[in-house]
């Protein structure tokens, strides 16, 4: 290698010495010198090329031109209901942007934009901030969502506004406004704590992300990939050359199991009561969620362009808690809907059978205390069937006390209570299944016998969420299999090609005898169709379909010695929560509806009519629905 030899001689000349070090070292130092010289020659040549050969050209682009970086937002994926109805998509937003480096006097330009658009100059200034460094060469948002006319006013005067650019960008649009708001969720800017978490490690400050619901759950799929351009512009803002471009990639679409028509019917019915509440409807054959309604709700559209601070704090401070998803997070005593647990426990443990009878004289005595039945006159002689049909408390007091709280808890757990149902759309509350051990751990107190009495009819410490109620009865109605409720049916690419499809998943089966289950189901059928049945509202469905169900009335405060005759006399906050759960048809159900009305009073009168409206809508459109999908 000539070069190596040359460098080696060079080095020895400079040093003028010879050392006995090591022949190998000497040789390798020489190679290193050659390598260094060669690399440097290449770099020097490149320097010469850039500065001397091409220097003139670069001087021109340096003195007159600048590179403008424009961020292009990707269009978020569309969210459909099960019938292909669009729930969320994007609408155009007319925006005005500024490139601070090109504007000359930035604050004057912002003031002019304010005058043209009618916006406060201070707001615009705050939005743009004080850009330094590279940000001065980027298009920065000055005003968003102006409407076509506002933008046109700026557009018409662009000749006098150097460095001002307009764009049409997608902004999220929730078609049904507050409908299914808790399911769909909302958008917001990523927080600094989120930026540090592993889940968001590919995100950057300033990114808009889904902060709740499906928008949050499937943010990675929905968001797509933003793009942008680097444009060479001259001193007048004329675009000379496209230096680089990344095409934005639209997000993937999501198809939900939700049925928007049923959802609207449920929401309208809840809203008519003027009370807070929740409706959950499932397909008991696979766990698909058809309705997941929680009222009051919020309007996610308000978050799409960025909600203002004041509106946000009003929303958060609202005593009716519109941001709270009652269907998944609301925990309430189940009331009489609990009685299926007591019934199954009694049958399975051999405490009762179909011939077992209790005389209900309107109250039950345990020790020195008396526990009233809801029917003051009493039900007389009742067996399990009648007790379910007429919701006799005394029968279940007696059964529950015999079974004991810990065995009741065992059966509650078999039904999936005391744990989240596992629906992918969190967060979800676990509810509460009380036991002796739990009470001692929680309160450090012994379990009282009377507490078992309350638990046996779903009062006391019991807490269920509406989705748990739906899940329990859907397992009973479908003959024992409990599916994980799910709401995301498919994820598709922007052309509709299915990328991922959720498969139904069995998460539990009721390990009780078929005989016990059959007796409970026959009781639930009787609730609707037999004389004195509390669920009579569900009779006369379209097509002669027969339903089964159960009412529930959950006490908010302990029964007074002498309750007022008229329900209207009880203060709203002390009124009972109303439950109703039904599956349709009673044999091989295709629909399950669970309804909760907070402080609604009686399940039969407040909650059951809502369930019926959902069931009627379902049955009337069922054929069409499945034909379309």
């Amino acid at each position, binding site marked *: 290698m000539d070069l190596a030899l040359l460098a080696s001689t*060079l*080095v*020895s000349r*400079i*040093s003028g*010495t010879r*050392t006995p*070090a*090591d022949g*190998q*070292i*000497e040789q*390798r*130092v020489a190679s*290193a*010198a050659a390598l*260094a*010289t060669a*690399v*440097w020659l*290449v*770099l*020097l040549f*490149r*320097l*010469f090329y*850039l*500065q*001397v050969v*091409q*220097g*003139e*050209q*670069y*001087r021109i*682009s*340096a*003195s007159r031109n*600048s*590179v403008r*970086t424009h961020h292009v937002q990707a269009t978020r994926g569309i969210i459909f209901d099960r019938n292909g109805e669009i729930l969320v998509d994007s609408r155009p937003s007319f925006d005005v942007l500024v490139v601070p*480096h090109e504007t000359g006097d930035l604050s004057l330009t912002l003031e002019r934009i304010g005058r043209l658009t009618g916006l406060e100059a201070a707001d615009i200034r705050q939005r743009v901030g004080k850009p*330094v*460094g*590279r940000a*001065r*060469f980027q298009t920065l948002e000055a005003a968003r969502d102006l409407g076509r006319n506002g933008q046109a006013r700026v557009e018409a005067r662009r000749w006098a506004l150097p460095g001002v650019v307009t764009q049409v960008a997608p902004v999220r649009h929730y078609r049904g406004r507050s409908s299914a708001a808790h399911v769909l969720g909302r958008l917001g800017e990523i927080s600094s704590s989120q930026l*540090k978490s592993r889940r968001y*490690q*590919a995100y950057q400050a300033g990114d808009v992300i889904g902060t709740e619901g499906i928008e949050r759950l499937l943010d990675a799929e929905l968001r797509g990939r933003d793009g*942008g*351009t*680097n444009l060479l512009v001259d001193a007048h803002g004329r675009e000379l050359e496209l*230096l*680089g*471009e*990344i095409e934005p990639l639209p997000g993937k679409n999501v198809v939900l199991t939700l049925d928007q028509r049923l959802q609207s019917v449920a929401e309208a019915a809840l809203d008519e009561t003027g009370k807070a509440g929740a409706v959950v409807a499932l397909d008991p054959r696979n766990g698909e969620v058809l309705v997941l309604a929680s009222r009051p709700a919020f309007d996610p559209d308000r978050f799409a362009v960025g909600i203002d601070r004041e509106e946000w704090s009003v929303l958060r401070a609202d005593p009716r808690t519109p941001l709270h998803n009652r269907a998944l997070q609301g925990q309430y005593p189940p009331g009489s809907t609990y009685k299926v647990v007591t019934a199954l426990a009694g049958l399975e443990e051999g405490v009762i059978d179909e011939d077992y009878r209790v005389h209900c004289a309107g109250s039950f005595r345990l020790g020195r205390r008396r526990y009233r039945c809801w029917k003051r006159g009493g039900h007389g002689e009742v067996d399990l069937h009648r007790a379910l049909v007429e919701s006799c408390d005394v029968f279940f007091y007696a059964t529950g006390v015999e079974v004991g709280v810990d065995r009741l808890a065992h059966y509650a757990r078999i039904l999936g209570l005391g744990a989240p149902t596992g629906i992918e759309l969190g967060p979800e509350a676990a509810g509460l299944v009380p036991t002796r051990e739990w009470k001692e751990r929680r309160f450090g107190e012994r379990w009282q016998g009377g507490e078992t009495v309350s638990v046996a009819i779903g009062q006391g410490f019991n807490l269920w969420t509406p989705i748990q109620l739906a899940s329990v009865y859907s397992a009973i109605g479908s003959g024992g299999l409990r599916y994980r409720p799910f709401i995301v049916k498919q994820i598709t690419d922007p052309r509709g090609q299915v990328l991922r499809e959720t498969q139904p998943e069995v998460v539990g089966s009721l390990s009780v005898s078929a005989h016990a289950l059959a007796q409970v189901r026959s009781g639930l059928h009787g609730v609707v169709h037999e004389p004195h049945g509390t669920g009579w509202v569900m009779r006369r469905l379209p097509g002669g379909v027969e339903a089964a169900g159960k009412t529930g009335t959950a006490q908010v405060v302990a029964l007074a010695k002498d309750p007022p005759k008229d329900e209207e006399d009880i203060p709203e906050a002390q009124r009972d929560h109303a439950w109703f759960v039904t599956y349709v048809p009673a044999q091989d159900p295709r629909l399950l509806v669970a309804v909760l009305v907070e402080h609604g009073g009686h399940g039969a009168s407040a909650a059951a009519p809502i369930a019926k409206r959902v069931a009627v809508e379902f049955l009337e459109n069922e054929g069409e629905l499945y034909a379309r999908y």
Partner: protein
Amino acid sequence: MPAIDRRLIQNFEWPLLGLLLALALIGVMNLISAAPETGEWIPETAKRQFYLLALGLLALVVSLVPDYRSLERLAFPIYVLCVGLLIAVLIVGPVINGSQRWIVLGPLRLQPSELVKLGLVLLFARILARQETRAQLGLLELLRPAALFAVPAVLVLRQPDLGTAMLLALLAGTFLLVAGVRFSTLLWLGAAGIAGASGAWFFYLHDYQKERVLTFLSPERDPLGAAYHAIQSQIAVGSGGFFGKGFLRGPQSQLDFVPEQQTDFVFSVLAEEWGFVGAAFVMLLYLGLIARGLMIARVSKDLFGAYLALGVTAIFFWAASINIGMVLGVLPVVGVPLPLLSYGGSSLLTCLIGIGLLMNISMRRYIF
């Protein structure tokens, strides 16, 4: 250490000191140009760099005084200290711009990934100097050095600092070649490297990390990020022309077109204001420094000194050529500071200690 040997003074390493001072002072002056417009005549960064230079010269003197051979015994403890600092960074270091690189002690910010370069060079020099056989190395003999390289490299990657990790790999590679390795071993290493990289690619890396690697390999994939830096840097350098625009007259740099212009892209400021004449002059100063370092390696009286001098010179050579190559658009954009010119105390300190070690070896070449 007995009384200072007269021969130490006679053999004082003036040329290297001259090259060092020339480059460092050009660096401080260049930082005056590179600082963002604040209205001050001498910007804060240039002042700080100047004070750090004074402080660093003190460190240089300290690293001159003891015989470098005493460092041979300390090589392993120093290495362990560097690795300890790297671990400490990942535990207590604040996250700045998405990476953890510094240990903050009051007003001081220490960047251990700079010091670890010297630590690694010291340790490798010791290992090679003690290698008994002079035969070419096989796979087994390489296991220990490979592990000693991998620990700091992985820690630096965790920060993440791809540039420094790459530099460590180049240093290890330099020693590998200098030490002499069997050809079949090189083949094995190559195969293992490819297997490891593809394994990581398919099973370990996230999509966005793959994207970063791809962008690193071809910046055109990211025309708004890495390629933007490259374009702006080339415009700045090219517009400098033959004689440059003059001190403080580079509009590209003055208007903050060039990103990271005080640190990784500082050379583009120099090239813009001083033109081909100035930039080539500085590059020749570097080449002189490297040649002098190699010469010291050659004349060193013992193997440890030779390897140490070679390693320190390699730090300068690789960092400077990668950095300048990046600024001139012939290499992808990676964050490697330009020795002595980029703003940054830890980097400057490392350079000065390195030069101190070279001078130390040079001055003791006749003492036995």
